[in-house]
């Protein structure tokens, strides 16, 4: 095997046990197990005595049920900690245990509700009702691809301000790409704060006369095109919506900036989650680079669903050869059917494991200093607290 620098090991238990860690953001592309990772981290941290709230966005149904989440209700619900042998055993957890005062809450984000609440909190009842009924608001609050990301961040900000938990674990929305999560809030902010909006709200009142004239030529054309393509009613709806919104927000961007600063603040740790597949790791690479560029604190990479073998000393080639030896021997082949199957399976797993390693090496050679934690593939879908606990046990360095 070629000598490659082995990446430093990401010690998730240490991250969890460090009381200075207040926010853990799990991000990565879709389908890599972000939600499971976030939930497993939350459970383990609670078992280590921390007061945790897990903010999930789109959990698998059974996993959600196992945490007592039956609907999107935007309220943190207490999750009873399971009585697990591994968890209450002090030696492994450095003295903390499930009964040493830790607690776990979980909530599912309802993005529309979160948005509605912002509106209700900032506008008088009449105006709020007007905004909530506007078709543009309805589309923005439930359809806009950045809204979920934005509201996840908004909710994170709210939970942080509430200060009722000492650790918040956030699962980011299943974006088409991991980067959406960083960009969407700003995109939304930029739009709501944008030139078009400003013009639609106060087309006649901007600046000096010359400026107005210059704007009007271009603006007339723009509104002309919009009216032509969309119809005049649409433009009117937008204007109503925007002016209603404008009076209540002193600047949407300000809010976006606050959350952005929160993400950069000490106490926040980003975990990039990936599976050992080229696409997922490519996204992880982009994300790592982007976090560095934004000055956001990366704790490391969680590599989910890694296949390892307890019998790695038996190579794929030798295993296959042995299977063939048995299969070739007619009389004994039937007798050793189970062994033949086991040997073939082992060879397959070794090949898979090697392929995964090669894929992972592309990442680790490009980012040799990013600590990596491997989480073994579970034979069955993780859908209950015991399963989350098993995932959590793999965080231990021991």
């Amino acid at each position, binding site marked *: 095997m070629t000598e490659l620098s082995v990446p430093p090991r990401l010690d998730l238990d240490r991250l969890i046990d460090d009381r200075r860690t207040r926010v853990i953001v799990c991000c990565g592309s879709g389908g890599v197990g972000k939600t499971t990772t976030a939930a497993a981290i939350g459970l383990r941290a609670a078992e280590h005595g921390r007061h945790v709230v897990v903010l999930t966005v789109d959990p698998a149904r059974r996993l959600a049920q196992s945490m007592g989440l039956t609907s999107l209700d935007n309220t943190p619900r207490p999750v009873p900690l399971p009585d697990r042998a591994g968890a209450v055993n002090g030696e492994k957890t450095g003295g903390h245990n499930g009964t040493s005062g830790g607690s776990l809450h979980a909530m599912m984000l309802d993005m529309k509700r979160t948005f509605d609440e912002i509106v209700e909190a900032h506008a008088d009842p009449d105006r709020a009702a007007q905004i909530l009924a506007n078709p543009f608001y309805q589309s923005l609050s439930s*359809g806009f691809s950045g809204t979920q990301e934005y509201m996840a961040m908004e909710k994170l900000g709210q939970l942080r301000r509430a200060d009722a938990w000492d650790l918040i674990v956030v699962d980011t929305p299943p974006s088409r790409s991991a980067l959406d999560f960083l960009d969407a809030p700003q995109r939304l902010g930029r*739009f709501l704060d944008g030139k*078009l909006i400003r013009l639609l709200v106060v087309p006649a009142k901007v600046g000096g006369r010359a400026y107005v004239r210059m704007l009007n030529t*271009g603006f007339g054309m723009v509104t002309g095109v919009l009216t032509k393509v969309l*119809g005049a009613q649409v433009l009117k709806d937008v204007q109503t919506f925007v002016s209603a919104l404008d009076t209540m927000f002193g600047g949407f961007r300000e809010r976006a900036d606050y959350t952005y600063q929160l993400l950069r603040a000490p106490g926040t740790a980003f975990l990039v989650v990936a599976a050992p597949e080229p696409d997922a790791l490519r996204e992880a690479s982009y994300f790592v680079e982007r976090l560095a560029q934004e000055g956001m604190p990366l704790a490391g990479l969680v590599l989910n669903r890694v296949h390892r073998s307890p019998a790695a000393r038996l190579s794929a080639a030798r295993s296959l050869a042995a299977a063939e030896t048995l299969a070739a021997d007619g009389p004994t082949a039937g007798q050793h059917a189970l*062994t033949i199957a*086991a040997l073939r*399976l082992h060879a397959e797993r070794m090949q898979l494991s090697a392929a995964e390693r090669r894929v992972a090496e592309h990442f680790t050679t490009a980012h040799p200093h990013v600590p990596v934690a491997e989480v073994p593939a579970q034979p069955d*879908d993780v859908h209950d607290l015991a399963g989350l606990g098993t995932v959590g046990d793999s965080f231990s360095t021991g």
Partner: protein
Amino acid sequence: MARGTPPAGAREGGDIWCAGPDSLQSVSTRDTDWEGVRLHVVTGKGGTGKTTVAGALALALASGGKRVLLMEVEGRQGIAQVFDRPPLPYEERKIAVAPDSATQPGGDVYALVADPESALQEYLEMFYNLRHAGKALTRFGVMDFATTIAPGLRDVLLTGKAAEAVRRKKSGKRVYDAVVMDAPPTGRIGRFLNVSTEVSGLARVGPIRNHADTVQRVFHSPETAVHFVSTLEEMPVQEVLDGVAELRGLPDGGIQVGGIMINMVRPTELPPAELRRVAAGSPDEYEHELALGLKAAGLDGGLRLAADLAAELTEHAVAAVGQEVQQRRLAEPGQPCYELPMIPDGMDLGGLYRLAAALRDQGAA
């Protein structure tokens, strides 16, 4: 197997779970399950290999001298990656050739990476002759507005492009025999495809409305089918079932549900009864048997190795039994299922052609 309403030309057979491989069909006049479908929409949960399957389907549909457009709508440059190409522009260009065989000529796959801004520019040019409007629109943030927030507008621009490609004719002939769209993930598919309703909040009358209505007609016609990609895991399977129900429940008779493509299927090494027995048992029950077998194979390592292999065997059996459950759930909607093998050494262009062949062998194309 009980199928709800098999599409025209669907063949019975295969194993008890799903429509299985059928090798008796190398003749050139072959029936496929989706005769008459010209717009193939491919969706699935993130991570299930949606783009790869869309690419394989395009290749499969192209063989036999056909011309197929593979369209991407999320700006991820996934097609370029799957076909091992540099990033693609907003332009229809040939990216692959389907292999020819003794009985059939090859075919061409074209690709288009559609983004809403370019589609809007094109739309303005095409319908309003507003070639220079784009710049002004960008300057005033209208592009941002149109492509990010206007309800449904972004989607109607993208689906509109697909509908246009399906209907496009040159000297009386269809330009493309089929269009394959690598669509958004299942969670957004209903909204994405049901454009007419989505834009109704935006435009009750006017050109966009008309445009949306045309798109709506194409999508609700028998010329369109939505295929779902899944792996044999709980959540992707759940998304397929939810997605199928959503499409069937859409107004105007719903949108035609296509096939279910089960991706990354790994062969099991044990017969089903044996799998269940191993899955239900404990690894130490087999240690002794394995130890004898290993000895007979001339492997030293004794009981320790036997124990480790027994643990692997049990894990495999548990996983395989779990997959059987998921496979049965995927059969519930009564749609044809196609199995695509796991490409063990990682996906590459060769693997893509293998998946295309698997789709053809099973009658998906």
